[in-house]
């Protein structure tokens, strides 16, 4: 369970820093082009390192493989999975994509991580 908590905590961090934050820090009057670019970069070049950029979908799949079967069987994981998939789908959604909607989708994933962490910490 401790490993699950750390994994979901890592997910929260990445969600907040690499997905939500680039959009949140755009100026209120940012042109649509900048919004599209920020959404794409957040989802498709999520973590940039010496080995190049990794997309969010790849990070999510790697993270799932580290989670215990016990956690993957919970309602909280199912909710989280659905919401992450919705967020990942934004990368392929038809343009123009709305910034407020994208932010809300990311917020919903964050909320799902909170529920998952609450459950794990209460049963630990």
């Amino acid at each position, binding site marked *: 369970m401790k490993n699950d908590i750390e994994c979901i*905590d890592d997910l929260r*961090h990445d969600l907040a*820093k690499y997905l*939500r*934050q680039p959009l*949140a*820090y*755009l100026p*209120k009057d940012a042109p649509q082009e900048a919004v599209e670019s920020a959404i794409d970069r957040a989802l498709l070049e999520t973590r940039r390192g010496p080995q190049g950029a990794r997309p969010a979908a790849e990070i999510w799949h790697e993270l799932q493989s580290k989670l215990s079967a016990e956690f993957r069987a919970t309602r909280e994981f199912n909710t989280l999975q659905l919401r992450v998939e919705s967020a990942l789908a934004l990368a392929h959604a038809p343009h123009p994509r709305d910034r407020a909607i994208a932010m809300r989708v990311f917020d919903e994933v*964050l909320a799902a991580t909170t529920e998952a962490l609450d459950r794990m910490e209460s049963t630990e």
Partner: protein
Amino acid sequence: MTASRLLVIDDGLDYARIVDTHLEEYELVRPTRESGPDRIPNGPAAIEFLAARHRDVDCVLLDMRFDLPAEELLPLSPSSSQKNNARFQGVAILRAIRDRWPDLPVVLLTAQRDLALADVSDELAAQSMTYVLDGDDLDTLRIRIAGALRAARDENSEGDVYWGTALANRVVRRHLRVLCRGSMPILLEGETGTGKSYLARTLIHCNSQRTGPFVVADLSTIPRDLVASYLFGSTRGAFTGAVSDREGVFAEADGGTLFLDEIQNTPLEVQRQLLVVLQERRIRPLGAAKDRTVDVKLIAASNAPLRELVARGEFRQDLYMRLGPATRVRLPALRERRVDIPFLAEKFVEKAASHPDVAPLLETVASSLGAKPTLRLNGPGAKRRATDGLELALPEAAWKSLNNHEWPGNIRELEFVVHNLVAFTLFQASDALEAGADLSQRSFQIDPGLVGELLDNVASLTQGSTVGDAEGIAIEVHASESLNAVSVDVERQYFLNLFERYGGDFSRMAEHLLGNGDKARAVQLRFNQIGLKVRQIKKR
């Protein structure tokens, strides 16, 4: 105006990009590149960079989490895991920064709702000049950076006359800046004249963000029987002489700050009531049927260590505990921060120069010499700076006298001495000019004998007590034909104030001045010697 310079410490380029792209009002410090987003990528590199160039940085933006190999992480503690070192790397870097640059503003950047932050929130809350970004939008980031930069400027100027460079005082300042934020009471302890009242107003109240008034209640001046009604108020007829409803100081300070000076003078029976007010934040005026709630930030001050009074049974332990040994701040005596005497003396010279009694004298002398009406102190070791105004030169012997003095009245005593030096020197200069002397120099040498004489006068004035016992007593210093005349004038005002304070009771005045109420006769003799007559005063 030049833009403030921000240094980003982050394993990625995200924050540097935000600053570079969106915060055009700031200049991004670029450690490696000439253009584009740039940052310091890890803790060891950050410390190395700051060691060489911290003067080029106005504010640090520090990420919290660094996903880096172990060798690039500073350890959070000797036993912490690499995972924890990475999660809390911002805290480890912050600690390393604080060790060497305690006043450098740092905004700690955390991803929104970062749960990891809860584990270190107490440590962060206890630091000054450290701000946690608690939102994740440009406006919040701008506000945090602007707040950090403004606080750094305020810290350099706030309580300007008070702060020096002594380490003891830096700790006090940092402690107070943290304490002033919450609603917890603060207990200021320190000898008389160490600046308790001044700091309560300038630092704590001003930084508390409370909108209500700052109310001062000096409990040494309130007759014991009236302390309860003075604090909590009273209704008409509550006791003999209560002819109308009266609001207490707690009610007056509602929404603001109440400074209870000399709290050790609170009668024991009132201490119990005070405890209830602190616990329940409710007061009940004497004679009233109902309580009322009050929201007051309480600052209590004592010139005696309350813990010792508790041990002697003179102060309630539960009230002492409630006032909070944890929020107790001891202000150092001036003799414990002698290193600050030159700094304080310089500040007090500037302050004296703008005093209503001194400023006209300064203008007269300055205009006679074609100089600007400003005054600066120059002592041994001080940097010689060009000035368009006047200068007071204090010879080495005089500095030595100031440095070697014990300063029982602390900062207030120093201010008093410096004020008199300024007033007297300007008076002499003015006198000389009137007499037709040709003063070509704008620098006036202070006679070391004058300094010694003033210090002796203060000592005699404060014999058995200290200048600081004059808390709340306003004394005006007027230029006169001799130092002795100035001194007698001051002494006269002091005696008159005490006479009024103690209702003409010489025993209590003797108790105050000499710590011995039996010496009333000696005090009365001195009273007459300096030309004060009881009958005339009572007729006024």
